[in-house]
């Protein structure tokens, strides 16, 4: 993988379960790692509405519900799907390398 030099490991892929996302820290930033039908997804961990950690959230289909105010996001696209959330999550492409979920923190996606 040509861009692999920019990748940082977040967690063991095996630790992530469909109903139990994982919180991961890398270079001072905090991420939430999700898995759905065998594919991994990474978003910012902090809700865009308030101080809730999405890695502690409730999962239903492709959505994570924030444990703080029960607003929702699509964790694949980052889009808000239920009030009070209105601003999208930042998301990163998840790469699985040697059993680890990795991202390029500098990757620019909406």
């Amino acid at each position, binding site marked *: 993988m040509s861009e692999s030099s920019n990748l940082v490991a977040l967690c063991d892929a095996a630790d992530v379960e469909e*109903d139990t996302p994982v919180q991961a820290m890398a270079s001072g930033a905090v991420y939430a790692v999700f898995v759905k039908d065998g594919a991994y997804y990474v978003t910012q961990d902090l809700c865009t509405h308030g101080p809730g950690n999405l890695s502690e*959230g409730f999962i239903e289909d492709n959505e994570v*519900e924030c*444990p*703080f105010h029960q607003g929702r996001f699509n964790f694949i696209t980052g889009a808000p799907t239920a*009030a*009070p959330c209105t601003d999208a999550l930042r998301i990163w492409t998840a790469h699985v390398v040697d059993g680890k979920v990795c991202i390029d923190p500098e990757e620019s996606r909406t």
Partner: protein
Amino acid sequence: MIPDHVVVVGAGQAGGRAIEALRGQGFAGAITLVGAEKHLPYERPSLSKEMLLDLGQERIVWVRPAAWYDEHKVERRLGVAVTAIDRAARTVALADGSSLSYGALILATGTTPRQLPILHHSHPRVLTIRTIEDSQALRPCLVDGAHLVIIGAGFIGLEVAAAARAHGCAVTVLEAAPRAMARGVPERISELYAKLHRERGVDLRFHAGVIAIEGERPIVHLRSGERLQADAVVVGIGVIPNDELASAAGLAVDNGILVDAQGRSNDPAIYAAGDVAHHHNPLLGHSLRLESWQNAQNQAIAVAKTILGQDHVYAEVPWFWSDQYGINMQITGLTDPQATVVERGDLDGYAGVLFELVDGRVVCAVGLNAARDLRVAKQIIGTKLPVDSAALGNPAVKLTDIYKSLKSAS
């Protein structure tokens, strides 16, 4: 028929969320927001929490920034109360003498803190917590060594007590009932929180009666004869729904404005949302009035959708939270004194879930620092199916698995 003009009375969270949902669903007609408070809609939970803990900054949680209302063409009439509704003419009269016509009217007038019956006029150092100004008035009182007397050991009183202790105040909490937060939580949780507050230095007293408050620097007179010198008194003894406007207009009112599961009153052009709405909840099978953040948001959204012809039924399991001393308590469902109790995790260590079961079904769950489990508990309550109580109490069995097995059985 979709109205051309929606008037929202009450610029609290319910009013703000109703407007957000109207525009979010594509409503292009006129919207006017009328609020007795001078502020745009804001969320109230932080007024008794972050606003009192972090005195270095004042962070108001606005439902939407001011620019949003301009962008979405929402007319604002703030700082002016509605004085009457003329249902025949479909107009509301405002305190400044003007009037507004409506096609649909949403009453989101909220509640007013209950005052102490023994206090016959307002006192600058006897405070309640409902508005930004209330919270601002209390902040300067939270200084090291000040004595705060709090009347009422409900959520507001105990959150204020926790904040005051963080600033080094001496705190006395006087509660008339035999336990804390009696209306909202099971006895076991009341006991844990009484212990918590006492360990943190609060003088927490039950069966306490206040017979008078007098003096510029208030002296609280107790029925026992004792007198407490306070620097400030906070009264947190519940709220009263602001339903007088509806009542005067002949709408059906009983501890709030009576509405159906879609938020409709007995006048087809008038709806109620939020704390003031005594609404029917088909999931619970009865009517109730809820003073909660969740209800203010989601019941208001249901009203907006109903006005737009979507006939949206609001039927959620109630959900509340309280933050005290860094411990997040969440409650879902409604506590029932007849229930059987099952505990999961370490409640004594303030990390676990208490379930209440009636006829084998979970009716209420309280989580201490257990947000994810509580959220699953809310789903379990929503199924209304009997649950294996041994599994509920066994932390080795994942709650999500219990929920999944219920879901597949239904």
